[in-house]
């Protein structure tokens, strides 16, 4: 299942979020990301880094090429992820 990006202005994918964005994780959709990992494995890894529903996230930094990867504050730690994988995180 994929999330319609235009469903609502407030529903977004972390992978599209710009620097300065802050919000809350609403859902994990491993299938949304075109990752080399399976949806389940990607979701597992994201959860192991603290991306669970309700966690506060903020995009702190972006890389130079394609604004990728991004450094994301997840509650009280900072994690670097690529946008490709961050597409699996639905945020509001």
């Amino acid at each position, binding site marked *: 299942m994929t999330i319609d990006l235009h469903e609502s202005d407030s529903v977004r994918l972390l992978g599209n979020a710009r620097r300065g964005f802050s919000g809350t994780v609403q859902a994990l959709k491993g299938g949304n990301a075109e990752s080399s990992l399976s949806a389940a494995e990607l979701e*597992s890894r994201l959860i*192991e880094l603290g991306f669970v529903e309700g966690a506060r996230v903020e995009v702190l930094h972006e890389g130079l090429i394609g604004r990728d990867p991004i450094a994301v504050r997840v509650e009280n730690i900072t994690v670097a992820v690529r946008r490709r994988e961050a597409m699996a995180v639905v945020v509001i």
Partner: protein
Amino acid sequence: MEAALYNIVLVGTPNSGKTSLFNALTGSRQKVANYPGVTVERKQGFFVTPRGRQVSLIDLPGTYSLRGRSPDEEITRDVVLGRAKGETLPELVLCVADATNLRLAIRLVLEMKHTGRPMVLALNMFDIAKRRGVTVDVPALSAALGIPVVTSIAVRKGGTDELLQLTDTIAAEATQIARENDWRPHSVAELRATQREADRIIKETVSLPARPDTWTARVDSVVLHPVFGLIILAAILFVMFQAVFAWAQPVMELIAGGFELLGQWVQATLPAGLLQSFIQNGVISGVGSVIVFLPQIIIIFLFILLLEDFGYMARAAFLMDRIMGGAGLHGRAFIPLLSSFACAIPGIMATRVIDNRRDRLTTILIAPLMTCSARIPVYTLIISAFIPAKQVWGWINLQGLVMFGLYVVGITSAMAVSALIKFFMWRDDAPAPFMLELPDYKLPRLKSIAIGIYTRAMMFLQRAGTTIFAMMVLIWFLASFPQAPVGATDPGIDYSLAAIIGRFIEPVLAPLGFNWQIAVALIPGMAAREVAVAALGTVYSIEGGKEAAEQIGQVLATKWSLATALSLLAWYIFAPQCASTLAVIKRETGGWRWMWITFFYMLALAYAASLVTYNIARSFGAG
């Protein structure tokens, strides 16, 4: 009878201070640094508790779960579950958590409880937590988790007292009984549920401050800036390689001068003959010519240790991820590759944190192309003999600039090789994900830097005293026997075994501009790169006879053409002249195949690069 050895293992999320605790408890000096994924091996140590219980403590790679996604995490899983060969189940699992970062740690503890092993949780880095205003209701946390909880400060004296007392109590009373192991890999739903449970427990027992680490945030706003961040990274590397050359010079001249005096003294004191020749040519000119480079080795390690302890390495990996991605490399490859500037062996071991096998293999194959510290003696020797020590653009040392250039060529060719591997072998694969925790910055601690440098310096000297010394004895012997027949007119060395061997190989290397002395030095140089410098030192010193006490660099300047010197530099950028690296590649890739591939591709590159360099240099009249 004495009580049996009590087995404890350390488990915890990466960078929580397990190895620091291990070092504090056992008095070891295992590598500690401020980035996730420092420890990639199982390490055992021993200590005695205050009440006299003998304990075996095992340090393990950090992990977020027991699923074992990469080779280092598999080690942790297998030891904890008693699956590793010859491993007994631990009697106590000491979970280590970074008290400032409890979410992931508590989730791991909840997962670990399924293994049924008796457990203790140490809330480490409690000093930092306190400073930030984190308060933990320890008894409540202990009750919620159902295991004993203590606080600890691994890097402070007395910071592990509470933990030691608790260990004694548990070991004596056996309050916790091992239960059935019902652990299996968590499904996504189970992971999510345990994380929720962990968050609930934290909410009830821990009060987090409103003020996060503003210092880290401020530094990051500069260091992780998309443009300035990269400029800073390039500047750091530039200063590092310049420093290796420029800062070390005065001390090196002192040491070299010392050995020169020693050589003259030996020549003046000992009667002329074999013993004098052995000590002067074999030991002083050979081994001495390598020890001279100690200051440079110390400088490169100083830089790397400072960056590691400060917490910069993970940032550099972040900045370089996409750039390295262009060369088919994974962002996680950055740290192993940067460590390879010190030595490829720990660099290759550090690739265990890369979970994707292909990414890991590519990194292993190119790690030996990064300019390791053993190349420094070779580079420095040739550069100082052939490149004038003038300043360019006012402040940059030309010799340092050439050195920097050699590093750049090493890096660029590593990237090119990686891109080729990616293109020819697995071009259609989607890139593996890059996910890395960026730890808070920590001020490097003087003591740990000092210990780090001391250990590295001792390792270098020990190598000089063993491998290099042994090779020197061999070279000295080959270069001295058989001795010249009575009445011979040529220098004695021309009749020696070394000359015979060197001349035998010379034709193969002649197109590169190498003479027989270089050829004969490259053979023992296969054991370790610095050996070639020592071998040249011995060979030329025996050949030189009277002016033997002269420094090797000055001798080379008169014996070689510039084209030969440049060609040898090019050779050393690529040549696989390190037996230990090849052995580690064989071990880490689990077979001969990749070792031979590395050996031959590097040899081929070395030959080609030297050939091209020599001919270009000659066409410019440097022959």
